[in-house]
């Protein structure tokens, strides 16, 4: 069997050589400070425009949590030139898909259109970058919508409620502890003036990145961006607020919740860890990424193989490490026990897997398989222009920079078993751990 693996892996190298041949990225900066990135993908006659404002929930504080997300909603409510909803009607009539998303480090607006109609998206985005009309009546209605959104996403989901509390505990000094949608009491008191101030402070061209991926010519996009965004006056934007987690181990924490509306128990474990933006060296972040991949990168990885299939104590078990964020992050494990009484045993089994990462070097075949999975994923990623635009925008908005994408493959391949052991010993240790338990009030058998 070993021979076959090696054979397949070696043959694979020829195919994966092309993974590195991703299209070149073209960069241009306008006089007002807006950065424009263009990646060509000429196969489909389609283009994606994504405008990233470098502001999100991690820029907020109480009692204005949720203000970035509320402003995102109001960006569809009309400008000095256009009525509420006109943006959406115009894009829709041209066959476009569009929406927006708010995260901890950014707020992004996208349109996907036939490539020859892309200019409409740039024109409309440029308008709402500096000429947004913030209307009191529309704001009041939209805050009702946002409160419904919070009910739908958080209040009526026992898992989301538990996760919100867990998250607020796992992050100690970081603004990542606050929910992106905002705490309920903050949403109840939010005022239009909060949004206006936020818009004024952060929606400046120098605090934004326009990413275009698709069937376009970079020079033509730069001209188009000059034509529309060139009219946006330069303004000073705030600088990203500091929010590093405390450096020394914060101590082991536990959160346990018994919820009436929960039917199934759930277990969260998270270790405070640096991100790609905050790690002393990128190598540490890549080693953590590989550690997560070893635990849960595919169906053959350790958590599915040992906890779901082997011992069968979990019905699902996953690991993740969010490397591309601005501040310190979490290395997380989430699992569901096979039976309601098994939470403690499952927590112990997950910790045993983490201990094993600290104590034993990862085997060569296992590491190679993880690299193969990641490199194949890079090839598959090329199928989706939307995904590529997201990748570039996230790297820019988190301060890591889009050039990291060009280094990704080499850095993944450079990770050694010793690196994984070293970061596991340093970061995946009990004083950095938060354990969250969600328990149904009635053993989940109702």
């Amino acid at each position, binding site marked *: 069997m070993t021979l076959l693996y090696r054979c397949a*892996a070696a043959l*694979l190298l020829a195919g994966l050589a092309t993974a590195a041949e991703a299209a070149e990225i073209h960069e241009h900066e306008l006089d007002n400070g807006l950065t424009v990135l263009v990646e060509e993908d000429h196969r489909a006659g389609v283009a994606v425009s994504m405008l990233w404002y470098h502001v999100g929930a991690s820029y907020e504080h109480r009692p204005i949590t949720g203000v970035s997300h509320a402003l995102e909603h109001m960006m*569809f409510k009309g400008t000095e030139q256009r009525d509420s*909803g006109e943006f959406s009607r115009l894009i829709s009539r041209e066959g476009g898909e569009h929406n927006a998303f708010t995260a901890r480090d950014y707020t992004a607006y996208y349109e996907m259109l036939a490539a020859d109609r892309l200019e409409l998206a740039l024109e409309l985005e440029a308008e709402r970058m500096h000429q947004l009309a913030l209307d009191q009546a529309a704001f009041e209605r939209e805050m009702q*919508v946002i409160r419904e959104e919070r009910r739908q996403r958080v209040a009526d989901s026992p898992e989301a409620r538990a996760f919100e509390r867990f998250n607020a505990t796992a992050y100690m000094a970081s603004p990542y502890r606050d929910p992106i949608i905002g705490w309920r009491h903050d949403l109840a008191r939010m005022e239009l003036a909060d949004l206006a101030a936020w818009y004024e402070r952060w929606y400046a061209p120098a605090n934004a990145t326009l990413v275009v991926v698709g069937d376009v010519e970079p020079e033509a996009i730069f001209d188009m961006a000059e034509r529309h965004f060139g009219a946006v006056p330069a303004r000073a934007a705030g600088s990203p607020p500091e929010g590093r987690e405390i450096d020394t181990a914060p101590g082991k924490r536990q959160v346990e919740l018994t919820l009436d509306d929960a039917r*199934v128990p759930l277990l969260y474990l998270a270790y405070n860890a640096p991100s790609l933006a905050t790690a002393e060296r990128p190598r540490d972040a890549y080693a953590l990424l590989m550690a997560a991949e070893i635990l849960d990168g595919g169906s053959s990885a350790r958590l599915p193989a040992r906890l779901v299939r082997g011992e069968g104590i979990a019905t699902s078990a996953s690991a993740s490490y969010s490397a591309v964020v601005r501040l310190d992050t979490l290395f997380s494990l989430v699992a569901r026990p096979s039976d309601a009484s098994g939470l403690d045993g499952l927590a112990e089994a997950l910790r045993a897997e983490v201990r094993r990462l600290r104590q034993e070097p990862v085997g060569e075949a296992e590491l190679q*398989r993880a690299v193969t999975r990641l490199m194949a994923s890079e090839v598959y990623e090329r*199928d989706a222009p939307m995904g590529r635009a997201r990748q570039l925008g996230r790297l820019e908005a988190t301060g890591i920079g889009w050039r990291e994408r060009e280094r990704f493959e080499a850095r993944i391949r450079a990770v050694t078993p010793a690196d994984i052991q070293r970061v596991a010993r340093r970061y995946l240790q009990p004083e950095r751990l938060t354990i969250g338990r969600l328990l149904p009030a009635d053993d989940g058998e109702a």
Partner: protein
Amino acid sequence: MAARHLLYAVVAALAAAAALGTGAVAAEEAVAPEVQRWQARAGAPVYFVEAHEVPMVDVAVVFDAGSARDGDTPGLARLTARTLDQGADGMDAGTLARRLEDTGARLSTSVDRSQARVHLRSLSEEAPLAEATALFRQVLAEPTFKEAAIERERQQMQQALRVQRQSASKVAERALYEAMYGEHPYATPPAGTDEGLAALDPGRVAAFHEAHYVAANAGIAIVGDLERAEAEALATRVLDALPAGEPAPALPEPPAEPAEDEIRIDFPATQTAIAMGLPAIARGEEALEYPLRVADQVLGGGGLVSRLFRAMREERGLSYSTASRLHVEPVRGPWIVRSSVKAERTEEALSVLRSEIRRLTQEGLDATEIDDAVRHLTGSFPLALASNSGLLRQLSAMAAHRLPADHLARYIPRMEAVDPASVQQALDARLDPERMVTVIVGPDVEATGAEPE
């Protein structure tokens, strides 16, 4: 109409460019996407689009083996599909997963009411593709369905049912299908039922596999970096592993009247989930399908521009998400409207939803609304074909319904032909508010306690 025809030419060219990958087809060559179709073993149709830009290949095999075939054990179809890759031809699940991942390939299965789909995504390099294909064949044709694997997957499905019961909208969806379809197989939830799952064993799963995972009941979709001859060889390799078998029998017609027209379920939450629907349209009823698609786009399918979005969200702040969707199935699939609203405003929301539906049936759509919707649906069509994943989705649907090769090419002209009269005719035929079921899942408002944070 002139503007529309010009648009058609441009869009069709874009669609063609998507399929051909050249990006340089002249606008006047209003040709169809280059879908190749041929009959393979036991009449199984194969649909293929060459896409050489990314060195990858997607193969999906669809079987008429969805939950409509569950019989008296709801959950059977999904349990079968989930257990396919949990051991085959002497390999256990771990060995299979390791061998597959060593090639860089991914395998996934999914089951809805009308089909089971098994999807392989591989690099197009010859050696890893050959190894991945060999494993794919074994998963399709020689799954072992060991007792332990069945038990594990069953347990996961049972737990998933309990997770569903945490969600008012999931509870509403289940109740809606039961009420719309009564004794018809579409009433069966793909996720199964407690009783159905409890009754399953390896023998029943193996028997379901033997009857349904056969060439005569299969269709194949292939998109990727292959020549026609390579795609043919790939399809043959996959189908040769399967017995010829028989196609699944045709499904019965859904009932003309729902079992109940309004169902209220008490549920602890801060919001009420509302689901409304009725069986509306079957594949092949093209004269009705396209006008109904346009009507659905205007009513609630069009995201941020639909009537329901404006009435429920923009004008009244009643809801974060309200949408409609038309499901075209082998026999009449449902037209469904869904919303989640603050519990205290449930009655107001119901009356808004009902009046929008009534307005649609009574007044139809005006020419401007139709024009906007058709412009969107035809203009966004190339977007759906812009990636290999998107093409595979389209080809899988074509394979499941055994559609002609020019199905995609005919999409735009059929949309273009929709006018106020055809919309009104389709609505008269298929949207009778009297036959609509309404399901309301939420708290008894009088007894609502404190809102959680």
